[in-house]
């Protein structure tokens, strides 16, 4: 973040520091600068998307229509999802990959730095287009983030903006993904073989392949929507011989791998943090890699579990039910490995560890509700209710978002050279954990009792659950300001926070990123580093190699 340039013991004096002023950020091809930009962008989007969710929760606080019209409510649910998924979670993970992948595999930058710059700077335009629709005649898209026709084809002037925004987001993600794959496969330091890479690198490699495989399919699907609306094709228009159900198949062929795009990097982060604070090597490194790969593979053959109720042949329903349940196996392997890593470890509970543990526990709840949804006959009851909303928010908020927060706490001392405030970090964790459960746990009950999603009003019997849920949502949002201040204070040295941390900020941490000074110099690993056994122990079960480091 800020102040790399003032760092005294710059490792490579033959290189200039960053440019000054705004042009530094516009022209930069430095992976650390771009990582920072991605993260700031993502948190801005989290804030905007969060405000939209508060509109939704305010309206749902009690039954009846209070604050907004149904049309606007639907715009909020649609935009909230699009902003959070494509503007928040995905760019945040790309930002973390930018910062950490080169430092973890020991190379100086991503393979295609200019492409990296473009990939980032497309995003503000994409979201400028998307958010501008809020001020148009007919308002923003309101047909749901899944963009099902024929409903989405009734979108007004916002429609082409929606489609082009999705195209731009797709291009940005794909360039980022190609960059990550090429970097990881070509630029690792000597000695860093594939099966010695840190798990964050592994999960990102697999995520990048998923992105390359499915983002173009989404681009195709929305292009078909565009031509259906304006150019007389009828891919999905029944009167012209098309089939709206076809859109759902294509969309979810993208959509299910997409949910794994949003969780695999989180698995990598948690697999990095837990060993550090359990002071043990990760349990079952190889099985983690294989589990990640199996999840990625399976994610391509389960898409129709989002479509159980559209009318499929029995054989189809059964196939997609069992294939979906199969995903629970590699996912379970991961959860057990995390628990086994902690087993008999000498654990401490610094903020990143708290968020990682919160992840393991709460993500698993989301996995369980996913298993319930996978049971075709009961999904007929649960589908399109708040039970589904509860499920995907458990995997996405205390899942993906908690992992992003954990990662920021874990690496911010390396990025800025300043330690965050541990007390406020812990307060942030406990408030977040409590409020997020208040928000989403009651939604399971409301959903099971029949409350539909994407409706601004509900039957009075659901009032209690909704009151709790809305209180939780406002509390969670407020608690995040603690985080923002804590992190900005590290970036800008507020409250007299001084630099001067050791290279290995966490004494239990391993990996090449902990061999460079804190804050990390603007250029790192211009010459490939020597990959020592000690740095690889992070990823290997052989505990005897740990000698080099203090074992508590």
């Amino acid at each position, binding site marked *: 973040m800020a102040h790399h340039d003032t760092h005294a013991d710059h490792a490579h004096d033959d290189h200039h520091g960053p440019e000054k002023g705004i042009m530094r950020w516009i022209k930069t091809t430095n992976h650390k600068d771009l990582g920072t930009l991605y993260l700031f962008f993502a948190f801005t989007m989290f804030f905007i998307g969060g405000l939209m969710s508060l509109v939704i929760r305010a309206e749902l606080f009690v039954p009846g229509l209070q604050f907004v019209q149904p049309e606007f409510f639907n715009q909020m649910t649609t935009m909230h999802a699009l902003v959070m998924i494509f503007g928040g979670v995905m760019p945040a993970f790309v930002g973390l990959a930018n910062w950490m992948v080169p430092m973890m595999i020991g190379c100086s930058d991503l*393979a*295609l730095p200019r*492409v990296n710059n473009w990939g980032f700077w497309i995003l503000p335009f994409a979201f400028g287009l998307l958010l501008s629709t809020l001020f148009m005649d007919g308002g923003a898209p309101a047909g749901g983030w899944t963009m099902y026709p024929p409903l989405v084809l009734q979108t007004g002037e916002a429609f082409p903006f929606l489609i082009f925004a999705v195209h731009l987001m797709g291009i940005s993600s*794909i360039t980022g993904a*190609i*960059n990550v*794959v*090429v*970097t990881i*496969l*070509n*630029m*690792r330091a000597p000695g860093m073989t594939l099966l010695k890479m840190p798990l964050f690198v592994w999960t990102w490699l697999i995520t990048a392949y998923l992105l*390359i*495989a*499915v*983002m*173009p*399919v*989404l*681009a*195709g*699907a929305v292009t*078909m929507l565009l031509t259906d609306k304006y150019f*007389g094709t009828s*891919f999905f228009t*029944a*009167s*012209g*011989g098309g*089939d709206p*159900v*076809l859109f759902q*198949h*294509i969309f979810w*062929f993208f959509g299910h791998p997409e949910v794994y795009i949003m969780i695999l990097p989180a698995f990598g982060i948690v697999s990095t943090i837990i060993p550090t604070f359990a002071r043990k090597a990760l349990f079952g490194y190889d099985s983690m890699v294989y589990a990640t790969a199996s999840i990625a593979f399976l994610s391509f053959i389960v898409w129709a579990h989002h479509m159980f109720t559209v*009318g*499929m*042949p029995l054989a*189809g329903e059964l196939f997609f039910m069992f294939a979906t349940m199969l995903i629970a196996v590699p996912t379970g392997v991961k959860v057990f490995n995390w628990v086994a890593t902690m087993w008999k470890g000498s654990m401490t509970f610094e903020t990143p560890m708290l968020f990682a543990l919160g992840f393991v526990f709460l993500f698993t709840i989301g996995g369980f509700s996913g298993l319930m949804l996978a049971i075709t006959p009961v999904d007929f009851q649960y589908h399109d209710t708040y039970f589904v909303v509860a499920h995907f928010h458990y995997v996405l908020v205390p899942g993906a978002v908690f992992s992003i927060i954990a990662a920021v706490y874990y690496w911010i001392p390396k990025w800025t050279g300043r330690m965050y405030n541990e007390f406020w970090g812990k307060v942030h964790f406990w408030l977040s954990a409590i409020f997020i459960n208040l928000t989403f746990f009651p939604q399971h009950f409301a959903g099971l009792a029949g409350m539909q999603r994407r409706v601004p009003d509900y039957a009075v019997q659901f009032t209690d659950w909704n009151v709790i849920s809305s209180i939780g949502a406002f509390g969670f949002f407020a608690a995040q300001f603690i985080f923002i201040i804590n992190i900005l204070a590290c970036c800008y040295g507020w409250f007299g926070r001084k630099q001067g941390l050791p290279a290995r900020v966490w004494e239990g941490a391993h990996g090449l990123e902990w061999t460079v000074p804190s804050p990390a110099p603007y250029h790192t690993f211009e010459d490939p580093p020597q990959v020592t056994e000690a740095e690889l122990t992070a990823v290997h079960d052989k505990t005897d190699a740990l000698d080099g480091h203090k074992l508590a």
Partner: protein
Amino acid sequence: MNSNPRRHALRLVLVTAGMFGFGYALVPLYNMLCDAFGINGKVATTAARVGTVEVDRSRTVTVEFVTTVNGGRPWKFRAEQASIDVHPGQLYTVNFYATNTEGHDLVAQAVPQVAPWDAAKHLRKTECFCFNNQTFKAGEEKRMPVVFMLDPELPAYVDRVTLSYTFFDVTDVAMQQNRGT
């Protein structure tokens, strides 16, 4: 190690283009699979040939009719009866009535759908208003016969078949095509 990142990146760009094409390839693939297995409840929209089929008088199946007008248009559209009991193998005629209650001419297209899905390919129609566009003058009412039979291969568990029609306004598209020819 692979030492040419640029070439590697170009290969991945090709994969991206390929996957974009794959998205489009899913369209014919889907239609082929649906036709082959008759799985999306779509019924043939051309006249079926019905040879001489033995009528199965021992079996009675109820065929129900559902009529919908798309997009909340105010036209009237109904079947002369809500359902009919049929024997597989025999031809039946049912009349449908539609009225254009709007003050202008229009062209409409009916799209049929059958449930359960595995009955779709056993519903054979020799005459149907859904085979072509229907033109309606302002205020015009039309009587439109449908001639159909259920073939005796209809799966044994099926004792009730629903045939649904949705009328779509295709005036714009039809005008364009007329101008084109």
